[in-house]
């Protein structure tokens, strides 16, 4: 009997996972269909780009500056005697551009932008504003989801690029002001083994993370249950799922593209 119960639980969980994937698939299909509603999503996309990009710029740059400074500072004092100081520039660049810049920017924006998306769309769902849009012959996906997804796909790489620059400049300033690393050492390390594809790799990650944030968070808001509690639960679930999705995508991108970023 317990075995049968366990089997039923397992089967139910497995079916739930498959249903979740299927519902996400339908949602993605709706987003792609919504691209035809060209009268609806372009203006909203610009507004969402401002919300996601411009309004997050200061936070992103500050977080990246601290990230770069601390990474470089700690790297310098982890080196043992005999290691050339240019290694600090190399390690800082590789850490920031290939991993920390895109990843931390995405995680920060998950809380800053993703939670806001879920809360906005979820509130519209529970207050039946989405139903009202459908009544007015507006495609709610074209008005709510597609602009956020496009905005995130465009603005995340832009923010990550600026975050990388901010982190590297912060690393340079930290090193020359607080350590014995000279500018020439840092620049030598920055240029060592650099290939432009490393920047492309960073942007690929940023694009993937932006898509994950917008897709997951807008979906969780879209399916939010009634009441303030339902919106709260949807927001918390969106942050958790998005964070896990970002880390999973980070691993997938690294597994696929990491061999190509080596000079």
């Amino acid at each position: 009997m317990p075995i049968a119960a366990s089997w039923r639980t397992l089967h139910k969980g497995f079916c739930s996972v498959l249903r979740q994937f299927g519902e996400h698939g339908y949602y993605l299909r709706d987003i792609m269909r919504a691209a035809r509603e060209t009268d609806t999503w372009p203006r909203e996309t610009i507004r969402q780009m401002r919300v996601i990009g411009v309004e997050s710029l200061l936070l992103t740059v500050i977080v990246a500056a601290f990230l770069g400074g601390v990474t470089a500072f700690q790297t310098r004092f982890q080196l043992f005697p005999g290691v050339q100081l240019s290694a600090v520039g190399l390690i800082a660049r590789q850490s920031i551009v290939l991993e920390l810049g895109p990843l931390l920017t995405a995680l920060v924006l998950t809380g800053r932008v993703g939670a806001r998306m879920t809360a906005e769309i979820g509130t519209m769902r529970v207050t039946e504003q989405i139903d009202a849009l459908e009544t007015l012959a507006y495609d709610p996906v074209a008005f709510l989801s597609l602009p956020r997804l496009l905005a995130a796909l465009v603005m995340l790489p832009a923010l990550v690029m600026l975050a990388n620059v901010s982190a590297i400049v912060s690393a340079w300033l930290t090193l020359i002001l607080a350590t014995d690393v000279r500018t020439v050492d840092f620049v030598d390390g920055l240029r060592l083994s650099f290939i432009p594809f490393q920047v492309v790799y960073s942007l690929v990650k940023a694009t993937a993370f932006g898509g994950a944030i917008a897709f997951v968070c807008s979906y969780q808001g879209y399916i939010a249950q009634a009441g303030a509690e339902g919106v709260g639960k949807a927001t918390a679930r969106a942050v958790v799922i998005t964070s896990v999705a970002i880390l999973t995508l980070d691993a997938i991108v690294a597994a696929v593209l990491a061999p190509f970023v080596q000079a």
Partner: protein
Amino acid sequence: MKRRDEVLVGLLLIVSVAAGVAGTVWLARGGLSAGYDMYARFPWGAGLKNGQPVLLAGVNVGFVKGVKLDPAGSLVVTLAVQKEYRVPDGTTAAVEPNGIFGDQLIALTPTLGASTYMAAGDTIPTGAGTPTTGDLLAKGDSIARDVEALTGALRAEFVSGGGIADLRKVTGEMAALVAELGQIATAQSRELTITQQQLRATLAAVDSAVVDSTMRSIRTSTANVAAITEELQVAQAQVRSMLTKLDNGTGTAGKLLNDPSVYARLDMLLMRLDSLAIDVKANPRRYINLRVF
């Protein structure tokens, strides 16, 4: 409001793209005014890659811009040299270690007194570089092999050849010898102790009064000997004076010894005495005429 959103978003995108492109170009090419390219050829396995520094007489003048594999057995390396530096004729390029973790740099070594310069796009001839980490590791491997061979020889000699058994045997014999010497030393020590005790007993048995008397007698004898010696020295001087006179022929004895006429006379006298004795024996009455009344 809508117009403002578009401006802000556009500005952010432009700044982002500009920062990305400028940063990438600066890292990959050293900036838009990157100077000029030069080339060098190194054998396969030189450990070169993009971004490694190029030093001219120790001054950082550029970086490795590209490395191409030539199937003929060499690497064609493109060097991005800053425009404010020129490479003198006669300069040689070598791959040298940079730090201790196997990184490399390209060292350009100019010749002293060169007044002409190489042109952009020239290929810098390759010179002899300093030992790389790989060379040092190879040397370390060689030493390790020698040590291993030495260890094998020692093992063969001492283990397989019975050297260790011989050493153990010699050590055992040495231990026995040392034990025997120890016994001898113990016996000698015991005898020395006995002798010492006997000597102490003898010294204790000596009467100090007798010793004092003996010492006084010795002192007296020594004084007598000194007086005798002094008299002997006087006698010796007198004898030496007498001998001197004899040698000089002065005095009766000296003349007797040194004058040949005296000897002739004495010889003549002895001959006459001999003839007289003969004559006395032959004619005693001539010389002896006894009469009784």
